[in-house]
């Protein structure tokens, strides 16, 4: 049997009605191990205007580099109570902020390790299908040999790497068009 996946449609302007119950801005509870970080940024449209009716979802491994998912068969520890999912609406001027722990490295293609990263879905009115991107971490030597980052033209890689702002706080913007346009993936 071979069916075709149902067509995606925009979330439209009233996404909060359906999504608010699961908003998760603090991805890691206090008892979860790992380096605590806060990530803040803005979601910007092609005019550089903040998108205040958008939302991002985050999926990540724990600090050992293990996903809380039955298909992650690695022999690394799971952390009780850590799902690794975040849902963060944008607010005035497109601003968003969330806290989590820095994930560990995870396996990539052909047995190569991937640098620590978050996978991110972007939803908003005006997007007929959500966008997929990734956020990598500043001052991380493993970025240099990450098998996904190396597929991105060198001049655009910085759009996927957060900037250190102050102790434990990082800045990462999602820019839909124009100068500094964020790299999006089609998996």
């Amino acid at each position, binding site marked *: 049997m071979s*069916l075709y996946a149902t067509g995606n449609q925009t979330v439209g302007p009233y996404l909060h009605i359906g999504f608010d119950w699961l908003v998760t801005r603090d991805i890691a509870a206090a008892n979860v191990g790992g380096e605590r970080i806060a990530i803040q940024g803005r979601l910007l449209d*092609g*005019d550089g205007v903040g998108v205040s009716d958008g939302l991002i979802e985050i999926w990540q491994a724990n600090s050992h580099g293990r*996903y809380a998912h039955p*298909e992650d068969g690695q022999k690394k520890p799971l952390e009780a109570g850590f799902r690794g999912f975040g849902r963060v609406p944008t607010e005035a001027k497109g601003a968003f902020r969330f806290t989590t722990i820095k994930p560990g490295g995870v396996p990539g*293609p052909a*047995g190569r390790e991937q640098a620590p990263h978050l996978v991110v879905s972007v939803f908003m009115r005006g997007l007929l299908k959500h966008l997929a991107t990734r956020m990598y971490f500043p001052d991380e030597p493993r970025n240099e040999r990450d098998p996904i980052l190396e*597929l991105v033209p060198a001049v655009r890689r910085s759009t996927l790497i957060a900037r250190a702002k102050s102790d434990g706080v990082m800045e990462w913007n999602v820019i*839909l068009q124009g100068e500094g346009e964020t790299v999006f993936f089609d998996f």
Partner: protein
Amino acid sequence: MTKLRRYRRPHPGTQPDYDYPPYASTAKRHPTQPLILPPQTLSELTGPIFGSDEVKPTDNDLTRQHKSAPIGERIFLSGRVLDENGRPVPHTLIEIWQANSAGRYPHPSDTHDAPLDPNFSGAGRTVTDAEGRYRFITIRPGEYPWRNHYNAWRPAHIHFSLFGPAFLTRMVTQMYFPGDALIPFDPMYTCIRDENARKRLISVFDWETTVPEQGLGYRFDVVLRGRDATPMEN
């Protein structure tokens, strides 16, 4: 190394393009640089799992969230969540949201001159059963105007959000009602080029979902991305 099977690429024409001028808001919100096509890794082949402990059994009934029943025509929705290989997707979260029967959302950005209904919030959720089946009880949403073009009206629709088993199976869609005269003029509907794929966004009137003396039933099956037959090294 674990062997994980990758997900199939979308069939041409069955998914919308990001840049679609008939839907004006795409103009400043679509990527202009080409998307990068990387291999699928463990990060995308996994995804959040939601348990039925987070969803109450009554969360699928949008007509019982307030003191009284909402105004409007009560309807029943049912369907199955399948993957592209025809296998049911069990125990997966579905979220829905919709306008009230007058075509108004209880949302600060909705300024349409139609009444709010204090007995209708318009959001529901459920988790599919072991065979991928789901059911919702709600009221038929109204059509409403929007400012996309002159005299633009959205057909009646219900937003559906699904996760499936992986980051790659995440999807959001809209369900339409059979016989709605506005459907062929709606840029959301026409953004999907393949006519058969488009039509599958329209629910089907269904006697088996219809409940005698209570309300009409509509059937809407959702297909999530399915996996390739061959495993990959990961």
